[in-house]
């Protein structure tokens, strides 16, 4: 479970996120959408413990990210849009490394299962520069999933994947949610958000514009009845 209360982040004088609160329950997939500069990445990075919020409180699986960051981080995984991999570690060694970081005692077994699932088993001794963009993305995802996180955050997870990869990725995200993980998915691909997410959080200029299931958002605004998420999004963020 992810709980965010009054999250505010300032970069110097610039306000990136203002007083944002939301929760993601186990099994839920929350879609984080908004135009460029809306504060999506800042929100994700704050929840992942990568940047320190200027104000507010974040709890992951019951652990406060500020007071107990190690326990909180050991329960979450953040998969950025651009895979960060180490050039001189092989695919298999990346997973061994993550297993040690997260104290995954059955790391070797999980490694095999994940690499099979993501079709990387035959590249286990390859180095990242020898992988395609999509394969790198899959490896980053495998690293994120190895320790069985209870909170998962994806930033544009489909970047660089081929159609089959996209299909498998959607299945992977849904499977983790069904297994009880709280998932946040940030994407500009509104059809993906509409397809996978149980709820949507729409941001604009760092503030919440709307939150809830698409049906609930539309129910509060009768003029949007019958419209797709894309049309709702454009209507709410006021851009054409």
């Amino acid at each position, binding site marked *: 479970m992810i709980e965010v209360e009054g999250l505010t982040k300032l*970069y110097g004088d*610039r306000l*990136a996120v203002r007083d944002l609160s939301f929760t993601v329950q186990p099994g839920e997939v929350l879609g984080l959408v908004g135009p*460029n*500069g*809306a*504060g*999506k*990445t*800042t929100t994700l*990075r704050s929840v*992942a*413990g*990568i*940047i*320190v919020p200027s104000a507010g409180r974040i709890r992951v699986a019951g652990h406060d990210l500020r007071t107990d*960051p*190690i*326990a*909180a*981080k*050991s329960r*979450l*995984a*953040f998969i*950025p849009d651009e895979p*960060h991999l*180490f*050039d*001189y*570690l*092989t695919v298999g*060694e990346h997973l*061994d*490394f993550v*297993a*040690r*970081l*997260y*104290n*995954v*005692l*059955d*790391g*070797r077994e999980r490694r095999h299962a994940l690499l099979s699932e993501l079709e990387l088993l035959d590249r286990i*001794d*390859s*180095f990242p*520069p*020898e992988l395609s963009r999509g394969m790198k993305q899959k490896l980053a995802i495998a690293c994120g999933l190895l320790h069985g996180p209870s909170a998962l955050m994806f930033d544009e997870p489909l970047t660089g994947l081929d159609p089959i990869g996209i299909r498998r990725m959607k299945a992977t995200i849904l499977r983790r949610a069904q297994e009880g993980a709280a998932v946040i998915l940030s994407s500009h691909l509104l059809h993906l958000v509409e397809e996978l997410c149980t709820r949507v959080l729409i941001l604009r200029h760092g503030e919440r514009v709307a939150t809830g299931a698409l049906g609930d958002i539309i129910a509060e605004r009768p003029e949007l009845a019958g419209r797709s998420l894309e049309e709702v999004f454009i209507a709410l963020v006021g851009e054409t």
Partner: protein
Amino acid sequence: MSRGALGYLLWHSLRNRTARQVRQLRQPRYVVALLVGIGYLLMLAHGNAQPDRHPFLRGPFLELGLAASLLFLVGWTWISSGKQHVLAYSTAEVMFLFPAPISRRALVRYKLVRAQVVIVATTLLWVVILGAGRGELPVVLRALSLWCLFTTIHLHRMGAAMARSSAVEHGRFGVRRHSLLIIVLIVTAILLAAALVQAGTRLMSLPPGASVLLNIEAALRAPLALVVLWPFRLLAHPLASNSSGEWLRSFPWAGALLAAHYVWVIRSDAAYEEAAVEASFERARMLAARRTGARISSGGRPYSPALWSLAPAGDPARAILWKNVAMLLRRSRLRTWAMISLILALTLVIASAGLPAAAKTVGTLLLVWGGFFFALGPQWIRNDLRTDLAHLELLRSYPLASDAVIRMEAASSAFILSLSQLTLLLLGGLALMYVPAPEFSGTLRLALAGATVVVIPALNFVGMLLQNGAALLLPGWVRIGPAHGGVETLGQSVLTALAYIIALLLACILPAIAAAGLVTLLSPALSTWAAIPAACGAAALLLAEGWLLSLWLATVYDDMDVPGGVEG
């Protein structure tokens, strides 16, 4: 048209970069660093304005020593990888310039002009380092000599990298295009080997009492060595000139060498292009073959196991150490290990041959080199936060305490640095064992060796924390990534190294006092062996300092902004 665009890119990039660095001065830590840097340069300039004190730092010996260093540098360039920094363009340059209607020759010229920004800055730094007001040579002539030397070496590295890329990447076509160069290289290598043998023989025949520097000079003056060093002496001579008249006579030769290098680089480029065209046809044929089912080589890097396997259980922070050591060992290539093996073999041969002068020279050089590693090692061995800050987003997401991350990052490079240093010192000590020195008894040598083994890892740990601290405190000024190398950045490297040594010495004050106290206290009972508990005490204090430093640096690390953080 392309010249205008490239000039625009060059000028605006330089202007904006400078403006950005000036804007960073709004932060007090950068102001402090700048003031310290200026004060340090002034101190250096003042110190070096005194007349030369050592005869070996002037005239013929300087020329010979510099020529030998340049020979080593150039030799290293040829045996190192073809895909060097010297040829690399930035991603943006590749994306914008390579598809643009600009000739490859124009791109090479652009790269040469861009390098001049760094070379000119380095020249000015070196004028200060070598002493602006020292010697008989006017400052301008000294600066011109340095500029000519740096530019020629840069051009040589560029030409060598192009030739290697062309030969390696384009197979037999590349080799054919560079056949003349390959012949020259083979002849030079044979001459060099013969010169080494001749210099070695001369070294072995010298009397044991002479100083190490005189031994080196005598070895370098062997006839074949003088032949091999001739072009390098041409380049070094203007800098070693004692008068303007001598400089005027020598500089045209150095200038001619520079001009020849420029022509070589431009012509190499043409050959590179032609080889690339032929290779493209060959590639097309290979693609056609692939369509018919022929096997194609993957061209991947060979897998090599890590130094030790990483168990899933245990201190998670040690995974950082494992990763960084594995990465560094994989990044280092066969040539490094070949060089280490050569030094080892040479030392053992000299030591076992019972030749005191040779053993003394080689042993002293190894010890000096091991000592130099304190200053220069941290700039070459960067498998710590100075590389990993590029992955800050990922590092921060790990369930690790920030101070543990910092300690393990520093320990990663300290581990490799200590290993390298101890190997050099051990070999040096081994060679010196065969030199009669009654004042250094066997017991004293053993005690000193033991103390060194204890102190060096702790000292390097603190040193690497200082290096990592600089990267955390001044991320805008410290380059993130592996070492670039190259003579054109040597000025900055030497300055950084000197500043680092001063900081390290400050950190050593307390441990040194403690060690001295322990030696005084324990030597009546333990005699020379008191060095070992004293070293243990000093190491413990150094580690304690390191621990405190890591706790403070952790707060800096936590406050750092992730690159691109304001984007979304």
